[in-house]
């Protein structure tokens, strides 16, 4: 086990580097550069400004030199400054990370806390009306694109029903307060949460069914409700394994998946930041966000694999 972990850690380093190289190359492959992003088409063209920008960001250097320079700086903690605002990339990325994690983390919590009980219910009453209704409603939330759910939700719950504020993380001009923050959080988290709800519902249901469906019915009939509940608890423990793995696998998404929702709601997280970075061809910002993404993926995948290997002794990696 220990050797496995150590070996994984060692391998992660070249993987990490590989990710940075490939992303760096891709940014260079993208059509246009910072120059093209900064110059506004409507006002004509300014070659002197272009020359200055190229010089400033070293865009005329060969690609490998630029990469090495970036790598050298990053290893010293110097992630550079954003093209758009000149703010330091490291603080921007940390800010975005915090905001993204809050949003997607809450969505996941919602998904778990609603999806799992619904899944249990659905399993216990398989093929019943309740089962159909619950699965149907949850799936409704994942069958429409998030920008539509977002705008529609803002329109319905924000404008028409005045239940939630319209976008942003806090009310502008007011003192930061937790309740206000929650009111801003609830709609985007709910929309994102639908996806998690659907999955956790589905898999809880499957896992429980797998073990106890028949026995549950029989036990309930013979031993009464309490016996059945005990059995259910046992079945639930079985469901824990896939659920935990699911959580582990979802963690990377917490970082960068909610691009559309963040954009619609104006939630300043990493997803939004990545979009802005790409629009600006801001390679320093994109690399900064990628670092966070890559780190999260590597760590969570490793944890999951370790958990898996630990769980089933037959599956050892040699």
């Amino acid at each position, binding site marked *: 086990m220990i050797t496995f972990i150590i070996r994984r850690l060692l391998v992660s380093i070249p993987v990490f580097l590989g990710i940075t190289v490939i992303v760096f190359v891709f940014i260079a492959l993208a059509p246009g550069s910072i120059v093209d992003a900064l110059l506004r088409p409507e006002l004509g063209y300014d070659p002197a400004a272009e020359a200055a920008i190229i010089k400033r960001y070293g865009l005329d250097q060969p690609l490998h030199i630029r990469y090495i320079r970036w790598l050298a700086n990053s290893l010293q903690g110097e992630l550079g400054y954003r093209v758009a605002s000149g703010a330091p990339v490291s603080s921007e990325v940390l800010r975005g990370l915090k905001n993204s994690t809050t949003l997607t983390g809450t969505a996941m919590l919602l998904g778990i806390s609603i999806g799992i009980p619904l899944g249990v219910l659905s399993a216990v009453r*398989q093929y019943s009306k309740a089962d159909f209704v619950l699965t149907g409603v949850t799936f409704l939330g994942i*069958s429409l694109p998030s920008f539509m759910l977002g705008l529609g939700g803002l329109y319905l719950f924000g404008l028409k029903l005045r239940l939630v504020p319209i976008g942003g993380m806090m009310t502008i001009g007011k003192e930061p307060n937790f309740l206000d923050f929650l009111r801003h959080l609830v709609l985007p988290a709910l929309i994102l949460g639908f996806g998690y709800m659907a999955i956790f519902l589905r898999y809880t249901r499957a896992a429980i069914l797998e073990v106890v469906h028949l026995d549950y019915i029989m036990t309930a009939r013979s031993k009464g409700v309490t016996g059945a509940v005990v059995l259910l608890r046992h079945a639930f423990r079985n469901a824990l394994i896939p659920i935990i793995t699911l959580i582990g696998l979802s963690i990377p998404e917490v970082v960068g998946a909610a691009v559309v929702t963040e954009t619609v709601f104006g939630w300043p997280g990493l997803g939004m930041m990545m979009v802005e970075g790409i629009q600006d061809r801001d390679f320093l910002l994109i690399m900064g966000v990628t670092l966070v993404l890559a780190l999260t993926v590597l760590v969570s995948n490793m944890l999951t694999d370790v958990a898996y290997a630990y*769980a089933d002794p037959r*599956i050892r990696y040699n």
Partner: protein
Amino acid sequence: MPTHGFDTTEMAVSEVAPPSVVQIVGPVGVSPGRRALGRFLRHRLAIVGLITIGLIILLAIIGSQEAALTMNLKMGFTNQPPGKLPGYLLGTDALGRDILARTIVGGRVSILVALFSVSISTGIGTIVGVTAGYLGGWVDLALMRFVDIVLSFPVILLLLVVAYLIGPGLVQMILMIGFVTWARGARIIRGQVVALREMAFIEAARVIGISDIRMVMTHILPNIIAPLVVFATFGVANVIVFEASLSYLGLGVQPPTPSWGNLLHVTRVVSVLERHTWLWVPPATMIVLMVLAVNFVGDGLRDAFDQRSVSDD
């Protein structure tokens, strides 16, 4: 999982679900295939789903491309609600085009993109996953780390660059989506294969001396068909919604070719969202029906393949 966002871990659980999920060839009696079919047929929602899908596909095939693209830029023809103009059952859009025709043809595009891109993604995922899982060792290590790289790649950047390099167009879009979604499948398949590899009957076969290829074809593949099929089914539903999200970022199917995704894009104008509801309700309804149907079919398939979940035999 924000399945309508940029990722799906639909089948994630199967990665570590105990091998009991994997179907093993059982004792005599009704063939397992037959039994699976029986279980599927019991899942009423799945049947409904199947029928719905069939109907939608049928409609998509007979829809008229020309009707979907013909504009009518005359006063009194643009933005007409349903029933106002004779012959335009669902009304017209801002350019006087027939909403009904566009919705139907849009379905054709969306479904085609979904089917093909999922095929590609499942194909690549299976090849990589089986290779990694079966061969193990450093091949496994290398391949799975490559999968890690793909998973940590910022999706939008990838899509943007790929779109730029290979151009706009349906075929390119299919390739792009396939390329973006295969990594999950690879991880799942590989997990399954690894679980299988350690099982007794594989050991037995190895002792007998069956060649690797034979092993994969006859023992491994049939036993991963189940999670594979389920993954693909949910994948189709996800891609349909994913394509719509891509339209929001300007990366989806390019108009004037309609797709359910870019038809929904009109909801970005509040006026349309609130007043010209006939512009987006038809494609929205179709997407919902289709995704629900596919999800129910997927559920049914999974129940069917999972031996112990149904109270029969």
